[in-house]
């Protein structure tokens, strides 16, 4: 028997023992070990997962804090990686097993434990779907403001772990602003509550802010098992201003003038000429103007306030825009939003023999540099011969780029990798970040040194303290070692 064969046989035996132990710990019905299921957990939405297959050893689907604690304690004892996963809608390989281990699918644990309307809070389990939570809250005229595009499928646990946001981050910010407390199972299996044990306060400055530490930690510090959220009263009014510009620079200039008037729209979206072309190709009946940029402002609040702010934004936009429309009628608003909402499909269908990919798709730059970023990406697109569609949340500098290519073509794949790297480096050069809301995962980890310098060492220390055996979601968010000393004294 060869050494390789022997090693393989040993692996099979160890894995069989792992599966049996997990079944004994949390029940057979919560353990998936069939190859067909493991394959289905080998991907997320990232391009990296399209090119690679990341198979876990086993998948568990816990439905209680006790289940999670038992699995984590076991994994800690046996030094087995644990990879928490929500709906697997991420674009960074954040919820896949890079080198085997236990994938913990928390999406089945989807109870809304309580809507505390009197205190404007909600208590939820990690698997609750974002849209479902807002359906529950709507009965109390409340809502949870962060609004990712994946609202219908992403989980609150995933949103917290990635500090997700969305279109309305301009006014409402990101998830971290709404997380008041968490229950977290640490890598050792110990359960802690952040934000105060039993607390139901909105303001609480007692102790170190561990809640903030875990929000956006991408599962490398522990498993989030319960989330206490602050929620807000649902706005009664809503309106949309659309403005088309013949000069790209006029778009951010208009945004700035709106801000200077003291108006904070709920969201401000931009479609550059690449996006306008994509939409007009896919849905010519929408008849988007042949412009360099289109801005969509959404305002919400009291009906009277909406009317006033919308009219003022329209007035400001008219100073430089070639076309401006202001609407509050629901059907017309839906029509105006359609150009934005069909973009994903439009980009995907731009090439019959290809598709859009999720890579380099989430850079964030200062507001004043948005046009530089858009122009820079277009130039890189030409340089590497990969078509891109650009759109994004101009109100907070978050640019989404959709490279469109044939993923079967090795040449195009190689060029795309170079393009994506160049886009990430462009963001850093423009004093921005490689990611505004999608996270780092495994796909942007190589930029950690460059983005964080000496601070990375502190992050590493925190990680090592909480997870000395390195079992929690290894290979994500921050590298295990190395700090580029040349960045330390920056």
């Amino acid at each position, binding site marked *: 028997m060869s050494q390789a064969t022997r090693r393989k046989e040993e692996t099979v035996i160890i894995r069989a023992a792992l599966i049996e132990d997990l079944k004994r710990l949390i029940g057979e019905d919560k353990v998936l070990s069939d190859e067909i299921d493991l394959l289905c957990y080998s991907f997320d939405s990232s391009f990296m997962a399209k090119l*690679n*297959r990341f198979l876990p050893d086993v998948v568990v689907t816990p439905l209680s804090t006790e289940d999670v604690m038992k699995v984590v304690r076991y994994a800690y004892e046996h030094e087995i990686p644990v990879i928490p996963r929500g709906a697997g809608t991420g674009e960074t390989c954040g919820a896949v097993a890079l080198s085997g281990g236990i994938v913990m699918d928390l999406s089945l644990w989807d109870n809304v434990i309580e809507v505390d309307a009197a205190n404007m809070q909600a208590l939820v389990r990690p698997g609750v779907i974002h849209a479902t939570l807002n359906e529950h809250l709507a009965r109390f005229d409340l809502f949870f403001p962060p609004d990712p595009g994946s609202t219908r*499928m992403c989980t609150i646990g995933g949103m917290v772990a990635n500090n997700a946001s969305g279109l309305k981050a301009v006014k409402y910010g990101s998830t971290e602003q709404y997380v008041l407390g968490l229950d977290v199972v640490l890598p050792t299996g110990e359960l802690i509550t952040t934000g105060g044990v039993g607390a139901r306060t909105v303001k609480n400055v007692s102790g170190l802010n561990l809640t903030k530490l875990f929000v956006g930690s991408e599962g490398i510090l522990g498993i989030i098992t319960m989330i206490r959220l602050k929620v807000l009263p649902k706005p009664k009014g809503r309106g949309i201003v659309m403005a088309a510009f013949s000069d790209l620079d006029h778009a951010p200039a208009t945004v700035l003038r709106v801000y200077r008037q003291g108006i904070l729209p709920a969201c401000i979206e931009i479609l550059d000429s690449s996006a306008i072309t994509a939409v007009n190709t896919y849905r010519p009946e929408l008849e988007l103007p042949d412009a360099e940029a289109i801005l969509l402002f959404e305002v919400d609040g009291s009906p009277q306030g909406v009317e006033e702010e919308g009219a003022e934004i329209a007035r400001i936009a008219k100073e430089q825009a070639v076309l401006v429309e202001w609407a509050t009628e629901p059907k017309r608003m839906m029509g105006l939003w359609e150009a934005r909402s069909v973009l*994903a499909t439009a980009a995907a269908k731009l090439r019959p023999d290809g598709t859009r990919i999720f890579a380099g798709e989430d850079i964030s730059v200062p507001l004043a540099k948005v046009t530089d970023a858009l122009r820079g990406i277009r130039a890189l697109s030409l340089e590497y011969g990969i078509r891109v569609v650009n759109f994004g949340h101009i109100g907070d500098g978050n640019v989404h780029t959709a490279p469109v290519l*044939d993923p079967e073509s090795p040449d195009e794949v190689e060029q795309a990798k170079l393009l994506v790297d160049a886009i990430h480096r462009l963001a850093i050069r423009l004093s921005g970040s490689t990611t505004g809301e999608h996270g780092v995962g495994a796909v942007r980890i190589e930029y950690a040194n460059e983005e964080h310098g000496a601070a990375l060492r502190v992050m590493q220390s925190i990680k090592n303290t909480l997870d000395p055996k390195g079992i929690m979601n290894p290979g994500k968010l921050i590298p295990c070692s190395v700090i580029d000393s040349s960045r330390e004294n920056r």
Partner: protein
Amino acid sequence: MIREIGASPDFIIEFGKKCVRCGQCRSVCPVFTEFKTEGFSPRARVFLADMIHRSCKGSTVALNSRGPAHIDYADSSPDARTFTDNAPTDILKKAWDRNLICLLCGACATDCPSGVPVCDIILSMRKEYVAHGGRPKLVAELSQRIRETHNVVGEDNENRWLWMEEHTPISVHSECQVTPLRRPQGLVYFTGCVASLYPGAYKIPRSMIQIMNRTGIGFALLGGEEWCCGYPLSLLGLDSEADEIAGHNLEKVVGLGADTVMTSCPSCYYTWRHLIEKTGAHITVIHYTQLLNGIVADQAVKLSPMEVVATYHDPCDLGRKSGIYDPPREVLRSIPGLTFNEITPSRKDARCCGGGGNLETIDPELSRKLAEARLSQASDTGAELIVTACQQCARTLSNAARKLPRTRNMPYGDSEPPRPDMEITVPRKMKVRDIADIVLSCLQSP
């Protein structure tokens, strides 16, 4: 096969690469929302089909596989590999088996931002299963039954007349002969297996012929010469058998000199539409909701009031797959006294009743749970009556409605008892009725 689908590795790989695995399909798939594990998501079905077909085709596209070393085709030691030389046959079979647990409702494909035709991919997989000699009991039995009896029930096909014999008297228009194979005015009413052979569904054709008789619309029935439309066979991948019996039906209709085929079953309608498209036969295919709407719109009849709050459930094969949404709604809105409340989701986004894709036969318990979920959505409209235009939807929903509790609490709390203020609208006992039955009951005597 009735409908050409690209049942080839190239077809599946073409769309496999288009799928960006965003997971949007998770939010609309009724089967996934019940199981909740990734293996039942439409994107995973596409992923598996793509993986398998690369293997079958001997794809040279290298994939980097990382992970544990326990699975042969995912050895972590080489950085790159192909599936060419170690096709995962076990996975093939399991993926095919799992694809039987699908409603083929088309919600995922309709909602897909990348335009991936998930249903066609699953149908391709089913077809290949059969082509490779896979004949699970279900497939073998259905095939034999239809081959021998020409209907899905397995009864003597002449029993297709029974629903009429028990229904007397029938007022027959002077030009309307219900005798089989006599020249009609031009319209053949293709009643379908379920409506002709399941007593519980007799009400549909009985209502239709009374409405047609009272409005002077001539028609003919094929009776024992009406064979299964072929849809259940094509759903299981038996395309050539489906083609054969569909060809028989077409021959009989053409032989009568008919220019129109009307169906009450949405699946028959879908099948006939594609059959005509494929053969180029000069036959117009209509659904009975279109005829009913025409009758109502022409004011050929006067409808008496019906004081009821109703909603309409879109059958998948009629709505999402055939684009017929408005005629049934217009019929309902024309009934005096009837308050029509739209269900959410509806039209192209409507959720399947749980009876699609032969699921009721494959997994009746799952089918019932999915029907309950749809009933719950109907209940949220405040309606006491669900109207539909499909004998299968009516059956699935009625069966589930009979077993529903009158009240229930939403699960606000896995650690706390339900609180009274958290109670939500309950799925009350609801009635499910066919649209022809409703129209007939509103028909005033001339």
